[in-house]
């Protein structure tokens, strides 16, 4: 199986994702230049964090028009797994692969720190190694992670179990004080209806090694690997 990490101009967690997939998880992985238009042979596409195009117009707004994004949309329509982390999540929103939009954090400051998130849906290909309600210790680092969605669409998200992660306390309690950025419904990550596209603000690649203080992110990568291997075995 093979991962592809997309590199947009201004991506800056591309190398981190690459490193974790290759050295920690031990799977094969390529960088994919944003001008490329071929995703043949890949099983999972990672849209990494960073500041694509400096986030100068809106986060993810310009990257969404990179040639590769046409392919990513195609790829996801065919059931390929796509995970967008932080800026990658923002790109997915702008591209319409996920619903909603990002606003500036409630406190109007960039925040980089460890938070806790609760797994709301452990049936996705990205979270199957967790159990529902499991609490992860995982870092966030963003200025625009204040997720917005209108009330009707939110009910739809909930109904379809598309809310994958919510900010919470160490013990899994969801409350305003544990929501770092003001996100609607304390949302930290969502997937599409089909479940093969995940967007999340926290950074699993930053907590996949014990030397970095937490390995909770590792299970996300391992879930992906397991899902793909199962599918490949079937084919």
């Amino acid at each position, binding site marked *: 199986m093979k991962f592809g990490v997309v590199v947009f101009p201004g991506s800056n967690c591309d190398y981190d994702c690459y490193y974790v997939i290759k050295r920690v998880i031990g799977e094969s992985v390529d960088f994919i230049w944003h001008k490329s238009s071929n995703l043949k042979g890949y099983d999972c596409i990672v849209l990494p964090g960073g500041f694509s195009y400096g986030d100068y*117009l*809106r986060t993810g*707004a*310009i990257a969404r*028009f990179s040639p590769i994004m046409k392919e990513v949309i195609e790829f996801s329509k065919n059931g390929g797994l796509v995970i967008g982390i932080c800026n990658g999540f923002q790109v997915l*929103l*702008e591209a319409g692969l996920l*619903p*909603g*939009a990002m*606003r*500036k*954090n*409630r*406190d*109007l400051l960039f925040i980089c720190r460890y938070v806790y998130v609760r797994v709301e849906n452990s049936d996705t290909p990205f979270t199957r190694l967790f159990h529902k309600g499991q609490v992860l210790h995982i870092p966030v680092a963003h200025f625009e992670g*204040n997720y*917005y969605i*209108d009330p009707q669409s939110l009910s739809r998200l909930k109904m379809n179990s598309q809310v994958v992660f919510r900010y919470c306390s160490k013990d899994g309690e969801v409350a305003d004080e544990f929501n770092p950025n*003001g996100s609607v419904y304390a949302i930290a990550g969502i997937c599409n209806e089909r479940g093969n596209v995940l967007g999340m603000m926290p950074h699993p690649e930053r907590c996949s090694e014990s030397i970095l203080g937490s390995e909770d992110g590792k299970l996300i990568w391992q879930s992906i690997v397991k899902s793909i291997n199962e599918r490949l075995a079937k084919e």
Partner: protein
Amino acid sequence: MFKVKIYISLKEGVADPQGITIKNALDSLGYSGVERVRYGKYLQVYLKNSDKKKLQKKIDDMCKKILVNPVIESYEYEIEEVK
């Protein structure tokens, strides 16, 4: 040449943390009577050689496609002819 001024603001109903912060700052500086502040973007786009009619379509197109995020933002614009 045309100068297009595009005003982008958050849609009604979308909470605006920047606007709220600015309002609070104005209050605490003692400016009375400030009811509400909305924070948005102001783009000035200079365009060459377009005839004004097509221009409107072009701008609407740009706005819908990339300059504005319709999930949370709305926009207005004005066109000025400049040298």
